[in-house]
């Protein structure tokens, strides 16, 4: 609360806008349909869930990585006309920001009901951007890809390895994250890994992908289409579901940002999430101690450990020990990734984390935290990112 101007302005948004509908298609390795089709159905499911129809929608927000056009999706849905739309860049850093931009649009009167979505077909190995590098790498990519640092697992591995060295973080700590996510997924019938248990012995025997990270440190690659509906709390009162109020939102690039190989902060571990967290908690009446669970972006297990530190659940360097003793599993002090997350439910740039957060506020998760009143959702650390706090009414 150091900046009264910022706080006063943010009051126009805080708890005034809510996620009122969520929907997604079954996650799959190969969904067999283009995202121009799956996105439309996911949005329709989210509208059905809310008790709204396409004619109620006048805004749309999606990830810049989508190859689709808003107008095509709106036409297929039956939207009368869009009054506001926006695309957010930086993949895993972007998902929470779709809700942030929607909330800002609604709070300022630019739109009344906004659908946010992510549709992504990435189950097939050949679809991954890092496998499609072509000659003449430009701009930020030229700072790392000519040396082979291209796979996200290696980009994150640089931080993870340094964290192990500097703070004594162990592979077992990464394993605790993978196992917590998997146990939650085992109780989530929508999760890709619902039938695949994981124990520490199996985790530690995982195939090395990019030392020090192994197979079980890496998220899934999934085809998915997910959406949520955002509108004002006034409209939310008449709708079908218990609203998940958007309590605080933030986006941050951090200083001297480089896309992906973002290694020149001082100290190096202070990457984008640190700055996003500062803004988020400054805008929020609820603080880390008030979070009943957390959906921390998990493209790779070390991101959850640094995320716990970045968002203030523990001090820098204590993220590893924080995962011990079941603390991040259901029944622990801070259950994390209660749907299974990107590691074990589906990897869809973290959009599933938003849906799970809304379920927790509704009291409808398959890993329900009893009496969950508030939860944090975060985007990818390292890239320009975003985060949000949802709460019950």
């Amino acid at each position, binding site marked *: 609360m150091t900046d009264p101007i910022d706080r006063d302005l943010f009051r126009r948004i805080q708890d005034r806008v809510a996620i009122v509908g969520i929907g997604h298609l079954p996650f799959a390795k190969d969904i067999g349909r283009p995202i121009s089709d799956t996105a439309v159905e996911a949005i329709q499911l989210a509208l059905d869930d809310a008790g709204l129809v396409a004619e109620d929608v006048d805004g749309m927000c999606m990830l810049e990585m989508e190859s689709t056009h808003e107008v095509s999706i709106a036409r297929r849905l039956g939207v009368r006309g869009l009054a506001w739309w926006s695309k957010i860049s930086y993949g895993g850093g972007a998902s929470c920001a779709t809700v942030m931009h929607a909330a800002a649009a609604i709070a300022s009167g630019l739109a009344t009901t906004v659908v946010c979505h992510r549709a992504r077909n990435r189950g097939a190995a050949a679809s991954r951007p890092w496998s499609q590098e072509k000659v003449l790498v430009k701009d930020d990519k030229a700072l790392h890809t000519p040396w082979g640092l291209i796979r996200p697992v290696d980009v994150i591995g640089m931080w993870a390895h340094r964290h192990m060295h500097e703070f004594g973080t162990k592979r077992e700590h990464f394993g605790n994250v993978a196992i917590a996510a998997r146990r939650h997924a085992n109780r989530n019938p929508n999760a890709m890994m619902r039938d695949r248990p994981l124990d520490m012995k199996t985790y530690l025997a995982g195939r090395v992908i990019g*030392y020090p990270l192994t197979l079980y440190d890496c998220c899934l690659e999934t085809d998915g289409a997910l959406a949520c509906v955002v509108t004002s709390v006034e409209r939310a009162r008449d709708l079908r579901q218990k609203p998940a109020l958007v309590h605080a939102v933030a986006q941050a690039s951090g200083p001297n940002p480089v896309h992906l190989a973002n290694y020149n902060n001082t100290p190096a571990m202070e990457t984008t999430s640190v700055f996003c967290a500062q803004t988020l908690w400054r805008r929020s009446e609820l603080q880390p101690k008030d979070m009943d669970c957390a959906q921390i972006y998990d493209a790779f297990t070390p991101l959850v450990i640094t995320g716990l530190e970045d968002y203030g659940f523990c001090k820098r360097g204590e993220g590893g020990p924080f995962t011990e003793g079941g603390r991040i599993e259901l029944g622990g002090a801070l259950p994390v990734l209660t749907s299974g997350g990107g590691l074990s439910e589906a990897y869809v740039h973290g959009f599933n984390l938003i849906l799970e957060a809304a379920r927790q506020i509704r009291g409808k998760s398959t890993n329900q935290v009893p009496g969950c009143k508030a939860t944090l959702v975060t985007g990818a650390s390292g890239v320009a990112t975003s985060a949000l706090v949802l709460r019950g009414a």
Partner: protein
Amino acid sequence: MMADLHPDYPLPDVDDPVMRPFWEGARAGKLMLQRERGTGAVHWPPKPMYWKGGGRLEWFEASGRGTVYSWVIGHEPFLPAFRHLLPLVMVLVEVEEGPRLVGYMVGTKPERMAFGMRVRVVFQRLTDRVTLPVWEPA
């Protein structure tokens, strides 16, 4: 190396107006960095020379020495262009002048790597126009 270069090798755009002095330096066997004339502060990644009105920045030849800040070892599945280098030791070198540069190691083995290990720059010619600064144990 040149004859073996994979057609899909991710070669950098050495004509990028901001990065050109770095790549031209590498081709001449020099590790070039950029600093502020007034303060000596080193900028990485480099900034355009018109930064804040121009005249504030200069390129200089760095010592080419540094220490290993972190590293990762790439195994399959990897980009075909790098398969002949696997297991590839990708490294984050904290150079004496301050910045952390991404590179890869030559002349060592994964099991010899250590945090804080001293390294020095060497140059790997990929094409007539592209030479990569890479690192070996000092």
